């Protein structure tokens, strides 16, 4: 079973591959090759950094079609930037069109926290995730478990039905979203010790059906 971890040249993507291997994945490829993405049975789309660079790198590597196809039909896990890129549009970098798989936008944290004092941005560290829906990827993970976050922007989906988990940082925001064969987290499971590794393990055995 091949798992493609999309590598579009931004940051520490290999740690995701390492974590997947640690929980039992046998054939993990870190790749920017569209053919390998198309051939993979599961796709993980990680990433951090700025959305403009992310989208331009995806275009440059001609990964948009392969990604869109994977999102449409195979078990797909987006992480951090890989979650934000699934939305219609991001407000980062004066506004960037994203992949548009889910209707909604990506906004700066100040839109959530307003002028509340003492709210540092980026939102960095271990925060609790309240599970909003049952999902196979939450299996064996306690409701309210802590995961590691580091981000300045958050996802604001149009449909509440796709929100799989929420966290609170000066206001409530979507920590995980999903529908059908797609699941995405704002936090970094590969950096979230036991609960994060469990989520990745759940992804490996997930058949791509959202309902549990």
């Amino acid at each position, binding site marked *: 079973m091949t798992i493609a971890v999309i590598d579009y040249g931004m940051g*520490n993507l290999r740690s995701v591959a390492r974590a997947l291997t640690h929980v039992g994945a046998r054939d993990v490829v870190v790749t920017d090759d569209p053919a390998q993405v198309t051939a993979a049975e599961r796709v993980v789309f990680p990433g951090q*950094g*700025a959305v403009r660079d992310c989208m331009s790198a995806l275009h440059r590597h001609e990964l948009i079609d392969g990604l869109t196809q994977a999102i449409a039909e195979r078990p797909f896990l987006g992480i951090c930037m890989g979650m934000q890129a699934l939305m219609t549009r991001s407000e980062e970098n004066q506004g960037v069109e994203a992949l548009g798989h889910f209707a909604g936008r990506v906004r700066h944290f100040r839109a959530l926290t307003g002028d509340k004092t003492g709210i540092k941005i*980026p939102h*960095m560290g*271990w925060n609790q995730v309240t599970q909003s829906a049952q999902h196979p990827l939450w299996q064996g993970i306690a409701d309210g478990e802590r995961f590691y976050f*580091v981000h300045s922007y958050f996802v604001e989906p149009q449909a509440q039905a796709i929100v799989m988990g929420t966290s609170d940082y000066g206001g409530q925001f979507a920590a995980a979203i999903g529908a059908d064969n797609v699941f995405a987290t704002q936090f*970094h499971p590969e950096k979230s*010790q036991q609960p994060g590794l469990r989520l990745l393990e759940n992804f490996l055995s997930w058949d791509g059906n959202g309902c549990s």
Partner: protein
Amino acid sequence: MGLARRIIPCLDVDDGRVVKGVKFVDIRDAGDPVEIARRYDRAGADEITFLDIGASHEERDTLVSMVEAVAGAVFIPLTVGGGIRSVADVRRMLNAGADKVAINTAAIRDPSLVAEAAERFGSQCIVVAVDAKRSGGTADDPRWEIFTHGGRQPTGIDALDWGEQMADAGAGELLVTSMDRDGTRQGFDNALNRALSKRVGVPLIASGGVGNLHDLVDGVLEGHADAVLAASIFHFGEYTIAQAKACMADAGIEVRQ
């Protein structure tokens, strides 16, 4: 409930080995960064920081291999600092598996480095190390100055101005070390951290001077630090990470347990 305050053990590295010794209850100091990092990971550390105190280019390569090995064994965030001089250095450390890179002296020499690195890799992975020492001012209205070379060389730069400038340039976090307190075991310079935390909108890691667990508590409650970094109190088995977290939780501080 919400975001937890972080506890970060910090390890000094020279030529790819942890130096100054780390002693866990059941192992002798082996200096092996992978083994030590794995122990802290399992012990509940929220992040791990490695600071390279060596300087040569050969040691850079050793450091890269070390980061690769540690990153393969640890599933919490990893920060690497010491001797980062260029965007290429930052890229090498990130590619090796570091989640964040701490920039210190190079930022003072060339402040645009922080902006370039943040633009290229995102603010989330750029930590600026602020080494500050009391300098001038009064007891009621202290001033702090940025020092380099382990606190020996003054720069004439005001620490609060500098922290703000670095956050504006794109630093995602400040690692603030009091050169007055470092190694003294008298606690953090909480006045410094509080002043910086008030001034700067990015998370602040307090460092330098921890002698006991109450110093960690004070670092959060009085210094308003988002994370507390310590070395010797953990390395020599005086306290465990779990004890530190229990002490902080007793004081009403939210921690990951």
